[in-house]
Each structure stands twice: as structure tokens, then as C-alpha cells.
């Protein structure tokens, strides 16, 4: 589905072992009752166990042979175990995934700062919320916290898998650090923000393990629907008993229990909780920690996505793409001046100017000009530049500043320059004007580089009815241009945190569900307001508390994946439900003729699968019913393939595969099992 998702093998040895253990532990009726469908199968199994024991001591031909009853009992028991196993596998996988993340946070030494600036060595397990620690170069950060002093480069690869180090500093929105990551340079003071065992990862593990897992609202509704179906088929089975007697065809208890178990939706009943856990697990594999199952489900419903321009729609920062000279200066000279003026400009834009010049064959370097006078870019002057030894003054900056500079020196701003500047702005770029000796020299074009493939991605989202909104600090003209090129539906230009908040509230007022991603403390209210708020792990603690998911990768495109994971979860649930119910058609054609054929031989006409005998027909149906659960575990865990092709086509597609397929597959399966049973002479 995406490059971020780490695909482990579905069944690893230790996962299987844990799941097998869980299959038996979960037999406890107090646990089973949470799953009404499978609980009734367990009750059916108990009835069969009692019956089989009775038959051992006092055989009753009307109830079938001891061996036959025993076989059915075993298969019913396996059905329950398979369902438990499915849940067990999902839990074990989620747990393993979370554990591998938690491994990064083994007990590590920590330097606790106590009053007076003294350092006390303790272990990370002893750390409490509110402690202040010192982490120096080469040390592992012992727990989640916030930098209160200093700046450091940090290797977060243990968590994110991304090898490039990141910079985290006190104040601002990049102050969050995660336990288990390593400080590569400098030292920082970190305020511990969580108690032991309360990190998001710990919470996630508890969610996956089931201890604190609560069914999500849609899962509850589906459970009710399935319980309703179970009740229906209970009535069908129970009333069949007197009907059979009336028709002089008393039906054996084993047959009734088999009919019941085959009809109730055991397939979806057995896989339902596994699907839910797998949804959270898929989020975790994408390095997104969900604080609840509900959040993943809600993600599927999102109508509006608020996406940050930088990092989501465009790659990082703006880049220089063109030099436009005015005033008849030699082209190469102009480019050289541009490059030289950027030597002291450490902004990404400045660096990109030097890169572009280099690409065009004009190289400048810092050392050659080391004894000349540099003017750094500052927020006050909004320009940068250099005074060369020969007295040439080169300046570069925002057009309005440069224009002022030119006019102040009684020079004129040529019409040509004005029109180039306008053209660049209209095309969504940012113009930087350049002067040489306070005379207009030319313009540098800075442009946003839109990520490849992002247009298609937004197209897909639109097909699924998701509206995309670009959030940017750019001026409205630039924002509009980029919005058009990228194909987003709307944009918020010159965005302030409260603009996001207002946008979310407005969308919600018209009934829409909104998702956003944020990192700063001032994003926290909007993150809390949004229906799905994904906080970046590098963000402040406040932001992480406010959101309902945390992205360990700090990747703004993750929001799109989260929506897809949510949709996939719901589609998987619906598809397997449809499959489960559609299966009943074939099982009926196997079982119903078998029930009455002894006294009404004409019912043989309904035995369209031409199954060998009533015994083999019922056994085949029950075996199919049991086996389909483990066979669908991979589908439940991986999720049904999600294709963003629009609701109509998606429904048609899934209906054909899981509805029609659900009708056809068991006819084939039951027939094959019946053949096998007959050939091996079991029945």
C-alpha cells in the first residue's frame, strides 16, 4: 500500500506459538461472551460433548454413531479454536510490532539534574514525569520529553527507520524528543513528560493486547447485526425439531447443531476482532500510533484533509529555477553576482541559488571571497549581499525591499524588471530582485517543487470523496497557483493557527469530518478539534496530547495513508460479512436435503451438489465452515485490497468478489470435501 509500511511475514514462529496459546486461553466463557456468535458455537460444542459421552455409554441409532458425533464435536471445537486463533494472531502481530519499537527503550542510564545543576546517574526506569535530565553527545535519550535548553542533532532511525539525523531544539515546534533515540551532537536539557508505562507506545500495546481494547462504534453495531442473524438462525434450528417430528423425520441433535453452526455468521464472527486489531496494527506498521481503534475507523470517514504545503505537496523548500537579467548586463556576470550575493545566505533558498549557478557552469566559493564583506540575511533587512574588493556592492532580496533601495539611490526600476517580477508571481514563484551598485540588475525566480505523483494522489482522494485543503504561509497568489498545479480543492493562504481552527469548525458545521496534521503547541487546539488529528512525534507534548494519533516519521503525507488505512479496515469488515452470509446459500443446499431425505426421498432433487450421503453432506458443510476461518486470516490481517476508484465501482467490485464469490466458493469447497471424505472412506 505504501512505502512506509513494513511488511513482515504474516506468520512467524513465535507469533504462531503465542496465538496457539491464546486460542485456548480465550475459551474461557467469560471472554467468549464478548463475541456472541462464537459464544453460541462454544455452547453448541458443549452440548455435543455431553451428547457424545452419553452415546458412548448408551448408543442410540437415531442420534447417529458415536464416531460420527465425536467427529462433529471435534470440528465444532476446532471452529471455536480457529476463531480464537485469528484474534490471537492479530494480537500477537500487533504486540510484536509494538515490542520491536519498545525494544529501543530498554533501561538506559539517565543523568538526572538535581537542584544546583548537579548530575545524578539513575536508570531510565526510575525517571518520573517532571524530571529534568541532561543528555550529551552519543547518549540515548532515556524517555519521551521536551527539550528545555539547547539544540542537538538526533538520530531517530531506531523509531522512524530514517537514517538522516534531525535537529531538535528548545522552544518552537521541534522540541519533542522520543525515548530510544540518540543524540549525535551537542547536549540538551530535557524535561520528562510521561510517567513510566504511559508512553503512547505503551498505550498502543495495551490497546492491541486487548487489556484496554474497546470495540469501536462500528464494530459494536456490526456485532449487534451478527447477533441478530444468530438469533434468527437459532429460531430456524430450534423450530425445526418439532417440524421434523411432524414430518415423521426426527432430526438428530448433531444435525441440528451442525445446521445452526453452519448458518450463523461464524466466518465474520470469528474474524471481526482480528480485523479491528489488524487495522491498528497496519497503522503501527506505517509508524502511526493510534490512541484508539475508533480513530482508525473515523479516518475512513474523513471528508476533508488539511494538508501542510511544505512536505506534503512540495518538496521541502523553494528552489531557484531561473535567472532573468535586465539592464543589458552579460548573462554570466549576472549569474555570478547572484551566486556571490548568496554566499552569506544560509537559507535553503540561498543555497539553491548557488547550486543552480553551479549547474549552469558558474562556480563561486566562500574561501575565494573570505576577506570580503558579507551581509547576512536577517529578518529586519530582508536582504543579503556582498561588498567586493573592487567596491562593487551586490544586494539580493524581496522585490519591495530592493525596489526601495534602488529608488533611494535615485536610480530607476526598469519596466522590464517589474513585468518579470509580476510574471514570476503569477506563475506561483517567488521573485528575488538583485542590484549591483544599487542599480537594478535582474531577478531570480524561486519556485516550489511539487512532488511527483501528488496530483494523482489527490485525484484518487477526490474519487473517494475526500476534499483536500492546502495550508500554507504563502501569499494568496502563490498559494492559488500551487493549489491549481497540485490539484487540491481548496487552500488556506497566509495561514495562522486560528485559520486552521476556523476552517475545521466551518467544515464540521456542515457535517463533514476533518483530519489534520500538526506539530506545534499552537496547533494543539486544532488537532483536538479535528476528528482525526495526527501529531508529529517531533512536535510538542501539547500537540501530541491533543491529537488522536502520533506519527513517528513526522511525515506530512502520512495523513493520506491514515485515511486509506481507515477505509481499508471498514471495507474488510463489510466484505467478510457479505462473504460470510453469502456462504449460507451453499450450506443450505448441502444440509437441508440431508435432513429430510430419509423420509422424503424426492428431496434428492435439491441435492444439487450431488453429495454422497446425508452424513457426508453435513460433515462437509461443517468442515468447510470451520476451515474457511483460518483460510481467511491472511485476508483479515492484510485487509481487503483498497482501490480508490469511487464508491460505486468499489461497491460493485467488492460485491462481485465477496458477494458472488461468497455464493460460489462454498459450493466448490463443500463438494471437494465431500469427495475427499468419500474417497478416503471416512463417511
Amino acid at each position, binding site marked *: 500500500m505504501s512505502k512506509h509500511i513494513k511488511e513482515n511475514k504474516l506468520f512467524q514462529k513465535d507469533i504462531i506459538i503465542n496465538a496457539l496459546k491464546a486460542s485456548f486461553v480465550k475459551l474461557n466463557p467469560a471472554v467468549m461472551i464478548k463475541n456472541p456468535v462464537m459464544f453460541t458455537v462454544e455452547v453448541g460444542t458443549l452440548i455435543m460433548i455431553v451428547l457424545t459421552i452419553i452415546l458412548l455409554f448408551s448408543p442410540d441409532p437415531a442420534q447417529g454413531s458415536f464416531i460420527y458425533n465425536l467427529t462433529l464435536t471435534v470440528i465444532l471445537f476446532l471452529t471455536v479454536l480457529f476463531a480464537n486463533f485469528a484474534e490471537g494472531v492479530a494480537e500477537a502481530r500487533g504486540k510484536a510490532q509494538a515490542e520491536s519499537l519498545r525494544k529501543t527503550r530498554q533501561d538506559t542510564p539517565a543523568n538526572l539534574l538535581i537542584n544546583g545543576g548537579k548530575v545524578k546517574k539513575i536508570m531510565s526506569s526510575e525517571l518520573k514525569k517532571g524530571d529534568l535530565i541532561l543528555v550529551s553527545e552519543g547518549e540515548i535519550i532515556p524517555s519521551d520529553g521536551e527539550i528545555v535548553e539547547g539544540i542537538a542533532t538526533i538520530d531517530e532511525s531506531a523509531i522512524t527507520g530514517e537514517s538522516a539525523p534531525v535537529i531538535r531544539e528548545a522552544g518552537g515546534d521541534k522540541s519533542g524528543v522520543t525515548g530510544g533515540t540518540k543524540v549525535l551532537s551537542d547536549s540538551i536539557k530535557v524535561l520528562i513528560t510521561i510517567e513510566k508505562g504511559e508512553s503512547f507506545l505503551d498505550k498502543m500495546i495495551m490497546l492491541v493486547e486487548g487489556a484496554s481494547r474497546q470495540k469501536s462504534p*462500528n464494530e459494536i*453495531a*456490526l456485532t*449487534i*447485526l451478527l447477533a*441478530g*442473524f444468530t*438469533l*434468527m*438462525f437459532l*429460531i*430456524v434450528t430450534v*423450530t*425445526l425439531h*418439532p*417440524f421434523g*417430528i*411432524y*414430518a415423521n423425520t426426527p432430526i438428530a441433535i448433531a444435525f441440528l447443531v451442525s445446521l445452526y453452526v453452519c*448458518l450463523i455468521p461464524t466466518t465474520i464472527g470469528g474474524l471481526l476482532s482480528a480485523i479491528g486489531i489488524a487495522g491498528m496494527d497496519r497503522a503501527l506498521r506505517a509508524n502511526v500510533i493510534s490512541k484508539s481503534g475508533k480513530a482508525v*475507523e473515523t479516518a*475512513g470517514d474523513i*471528508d476533508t484533509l488539511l494538508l501542510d504545503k511544505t512536505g506534503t505537496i512540495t518538496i521541502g523548500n523553494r528552489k531557484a529555477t531561473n535567472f532573468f537579467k535586465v539592464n543589458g548586463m552579460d548573462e554570466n556576470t549576472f549569474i555570478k553576482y547572484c551566486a556571490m550575493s548568496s554566499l552569506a545566505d544560509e537559507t535553503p533558498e540561498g543555497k539553491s541559488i548557488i547550486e543552480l549557478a553551479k549547474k549552469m557552469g558558474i562556480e563561486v566559493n566562500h574561501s575565494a571571497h573570505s576577506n570580503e564583506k558579507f551581509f547576512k540575511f536577517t529578518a529586519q533587512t530582508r536582504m543579503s549581499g556582498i561588498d567586493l574588493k573592487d567596491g562593487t556592492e551586490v544586494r539580493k532580496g524581496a522585490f519591495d525591499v530592493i525596489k526601495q533601495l534602488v529608488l533611494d539611490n535615485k536610480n530607476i526600476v526598469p519596466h522590464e524588471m517589474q513585468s518579470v517580477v509580476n510574471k514570476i508571481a503569477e506563475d506561483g514563484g517567488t521573485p528575488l530582485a538583485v542590484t549591483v551598485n544599487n542599480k537594478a540588475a535582474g531577478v531570480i525566480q524561486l519556485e516550489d517543487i511539487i512532488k511527483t505523483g501528488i496530483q494523482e494522489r489527490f485525484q484518487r482522494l*477526490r*474519487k*473517494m*470523496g*475526500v476534499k483536500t485543503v492546502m495550508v500554507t504561509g504563502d501569499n494568496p497568489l502563490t498559494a492559488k497557483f500551487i493549489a491549481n498545479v497540485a490539484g487540491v480543492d481548496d487552500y488556506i493562504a497566509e495561514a495562522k493557527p486560528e485559520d486552521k481552527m476556523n476552517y475545521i469548525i466551518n467544515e464540521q458545521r456542515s*457535517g*463533514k469530518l476533518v483530519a489534520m496534521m500538526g506539530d506545534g503547541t499552537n496547533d494543539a487546539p486544532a488537532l483536538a478539534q479535528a476528528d482525526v488529528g495526527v501529531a508529529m512525534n517531533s512536535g510538542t507534548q501539547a500537540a501530541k496530547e491533543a491529537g488522536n494519533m502520533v506519527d513517528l516519521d513526522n511525515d506530512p503525507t502520512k495523513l493520506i495513508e491514515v485515511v486509506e488505512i481507515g*477505509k*481499508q479496515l*471498514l*471495507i474488510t469488515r*463489510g*466484505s467478510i*460479512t*457479505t462473504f460470510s*452470509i*453469502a456462504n*449460507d*446459500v451453499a450450506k*443450505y443446499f448441502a444440509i*437441508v*436435503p440431508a*435432513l*429430510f431425505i430419509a423420509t422424503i426421498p*424426492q*428431496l434428492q*432433487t435439491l441435492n444439487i451438489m450431488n453429495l454422497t450421503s446425508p452424513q457426508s453432506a453435513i460433515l462437509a458443510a461443517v468442515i468447510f465452515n470451520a476451515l474457511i476461518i483460518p483460510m481467511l486470516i491472511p485476508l483479515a490481517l492484510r485487509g481487503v485490497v*483498497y482501490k480508490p476508484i*469511487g*464508491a*460505486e465501482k*468499489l*461497491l460493485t467490485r*467488492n*460485491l462481485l468478489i*465477496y*458477494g458472488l464469490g461468497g455464493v460460489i466458493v462454498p459450493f466448490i469447497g463443500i463438494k471437494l470435501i465431500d469427495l475427499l471424505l468419500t474417497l478416503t472412506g471416512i463417511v
Partner: protein
Amino acid sequence: MTTEITGILLIFGLAVAMAIPFGKYISRVYKGEKTFLDFMSPLENLFFKLSGIDPEAQWDWKQNIKAMLTINFVWFILGMIILVSQGVIPLWNPDGIPAMEPTQAFNTVVSFLTNTNLQHYSGETGASYFSQMFFIMFMQFVSAGTGMAALALLFKGLANKSGNELGNFYNLLVKSCTRILLPVCVLIGTIFIFNNMPMTFGGATQVITLQGDTVNVATGPVAAMIPIKELGTNGGGFFGPNSTHPFENPNYVTNIVENIAMLLIPISMIFALGFYLNRKKFAYMIFWVMTAGFLMLAIPAVVLELQGNPAITEMGIRQDMGSMEGKEVRIGSAASAFWGIANTVISCGSVNSMHDSWTPLSGMFAMLGMQLNAFYGGVGVGIINMFVFIIIAVFIAGLMVGRTPELLGKKIEAKEVKIAILVAVAHYIFILGGTALAVYIYNTTPEAAETLKWLNNPSNHGFSEMLYEFTSASANNGSGFEGLGDNTPFWNISTGLVMLLNRFIPIIGPVAIAGYLSQKKYIPESAGSMRIDSPIFGIVLFSVIVIIGALIFFPVLALGPISEFLLMIK
């Protein structure tokens, strides 16, 4: 045969053609818009003034349900008093018909209260003219009106973008009667009188037949009652044999008119839904699903009855007119089969032939019509029953597009699913549970056939008779397979309770869902939402209804009509 088929097509075509404009009219009535029948308002206002009801008061679903149950309780008491004392009421009882036995009275009152009209009595000998006019005919109007008013509440709930007001039950009830049922009945009644249907308060007439025997020919104010019997999908006849009786259905023309009358409002209501919600495509989708279901049952039944009974063919007897056992010559086998399926699919339950004598599979299709209980259905309650399946289908299919399910911009959540599935299960419990109880009693009673006097035909056919009776009661249909000795305390009480419960549960449940949906936040549709007016959703809806129904009833149908059929063709 061509004439017979043309007759059926004429009935169906005319009904649908009239249903579209009539549906538009109905939606105007329920929306309170201007109609050409506004001159009825003084009469309506008189009702409201006398009863002290404020027709403008807006109620939530609970208040409306309370109003519905209250007025129904009053009618129940009233009905019981009239029927158990009809012998001593001096008015309009020329034939001196005595009081009804209490359990029979209970069954009769409930059956008319619930728009079922399961008649365990014969009109000509069991009910006085007074009972027929003041109780039975009155109930045929107001019970139909109750179902229609309940549907109007549902319309309002679905149309609301917010708030919890569903309208005013009393106002909708009165308007259903005065603006919709009454005017059309006057029109139909006039046609009937011109076709020689009796309309008299005189008693039975003595006639000397050609053989010289003296017979008492029952008659009465028939033409007044038959229009509402069909239009209100009541089905309770003036005479025991219902529309097979020449006074109740004199000729082919009246047969066509009666058949159209029963189809008219159920089909109109589909279009009324479309006009009311301004979602015509949604209404067309429902229309096609219902029509597909109806034709799925009607076409094979008509074909089978036209082919005749294979057992008789085997005896070397020609059956050019099809299977004519239990059918009227003036109506013919095709129109009888079509009428029968229309009557069971729609919870009308009037008969123009004896369903007991139908070939086994046709009988099964009649039963299936009531068991599936979602194709056209009774006035008002038809769409209400369909609504339950729409909720279930939306929930399952909705998930498959990757959103939590929505219907008309409102989320379907645990509460709605719970109510919908319980309403659906109730119908199945009453049919299977009721039949199982009867069968159990039969199984465990020594010398059952003589002691109980229920079954004239034990075996598969007897099973079908018992199954049919509970199916008819639970679907509030009222037709009988007959052949069953049903006027006993067991059948009177058990089917009475089933009718009562499965009348009000499927009304209260869906109206409650509409009430809850009404209050929910409205979510505008997007490209990612599942369209409920698309053909593909129609297919889902149809499959949900048919597959669930088939799964529930396949075993019993296999034991009853299917076995009977398979035994017959051997």
C-alpha cells in the same frame, strides 16, 4: 389465454400509471401543501375541535407513538364491546346475528385493528350489519390510516436535517382518511354499484332455485365496504368467501377495479416517498426492487396455475383453462393467480380463489410474499417494512465502500441496527415460533386429528396450512389457506397475539429509527458516499431481502409445499 394475460397486464399497468400522480398528491397532503381537496378541512377541523386535539402541535417520535397506541387501545375496547354485544344491539341486525364468542371477538377485533382482517368468522353469519358498518368498516378506514400516518412520520424523520419533530400523528391520521382513502372509496363504490354490487340494509332474501330448493341469500351494504377493503389493503370481506362471492366481486370489470384498488396506495407510497424527500431516483430504485420481487413470485404462480394441476393431467383430464379447482370461472386462473400473489405481497389478504387449492408451488409463492414482507406491502406499512431492510442493506453495503454506513446523510449506528434487526427477527419468530407451537401441540396431543379438529389434511399440506396461518397473521395479511379449523381458542388467541405484536413492533421500531436519524448531524454526500439510488444498491437490497428470507424459510418450505410438489410430480 392471451386475453387473460392482457387482463393482468392491464391491471398492473394501470395501477403503476395512476400511482405516480397519486403519489405526488399523497406527498402534498403529508407536507401540508395545497390540494384540491382542501374543502375537507371544515370536516377535519370538526374532528379536532370535538376531540380537543391541536393538529398543529409538533411531536417527537415518542409522543407520536404514544398517540398512536392510545387511539388504537380505544378502538380495541370499542370493538370488543360492539362484537360481544352485537346480539342485543337493536340496530341494523335484520338476520338476528348473535354475539361473538369472546376469543373469536378478540381475534376479530385485533385482526381489524391491525389491518390484517384474518377472519375466523363468516361475515354473513357472524357479524351484524351494525358491526360490519360501525366497527369493521370504520376500522378498515382508520387502521389503514394508522399505517399511512406512521409512514408519514417516517417520511418527515428522513426529510429532517435536524431536530426531532416528526409531525402530528392525529393530524396525519385524519388527513389520510379524509383526503386519501375516503374520496377514492366514493369513486370506486360508485363503479361497483353500476356493476350490480348490492347496497341494501334489507336482510337475507329467500330465493327458490331451479331445483325448487329454498335458499336464504345473504346480502347487505356490500358496495360501501368493498372499496375500503381493497384500497386500505384490509382484505376483510363482507361475506365469508370474500371476493370469490359473486356479490362481492360480480364480474371481470369489478375484479380489475378491486385488484387495481389494492395495488394503488402501496405503489403510490413509493413515489410519494420520492416526491416527499425530493429523491425520485431513490423511489425508482425501491420501485424496481419491489417490482422485481413481486414479479419473481407472480410470474411463476400465473404460469403454474395456467398450466393446470399435473395430478389432474395425469388422470387424462384436459385443463384448457388451467388449474380451476377453487377458482371462479368468471375470473379465470391467470387473474386468480395474479390477484393471489398481489394480495399476499401486499398485506391485503382478500381472495378471489381458494389458495388452499392452488398447485403447491403457487401456494409457496403466496406464502413467500408474506414471509419476505418487503415487496409493496400494506398501505404505509409496506414502505415501513422495506425501510428495515434498507437499514440492514445500507449497513452491510455501506461498509464495503470504506465509510461507516450512512442513509440519506445520517449515520447508521448501533442503535438503528439493533432496532432494525429486532424488527426483522420478530417477524421470523412469530411465524416459525407460532407454527412450531401449533405443530408441537399437534405432535403431543393423542388422537390429534379428532381431538383438535384442526387439520383436515395432515401431512405436508396440513403443515402448509398451519404455516400459512401464522405467516398471514404475522404479515398482517389476513388471507387464509383455509382447510384449517381455525375458529378455536388456540388459533384465535395465538394468531391474535401475533397480529397485535407484529403490527405495532414494525411500526414503532422504524418510526423510532426515523426519530433518531432525524436528530443526527447531517453529512452531505460526497463521491465517497454510497449512492442508495443506484442499481447496484438495488441489487444489494434485493439480495438481502431474498437471501435472508430464503435462509429463514427454506427448511419449512422444503417440508411443506416443496415436498408436496415433489411428491405430486412423481
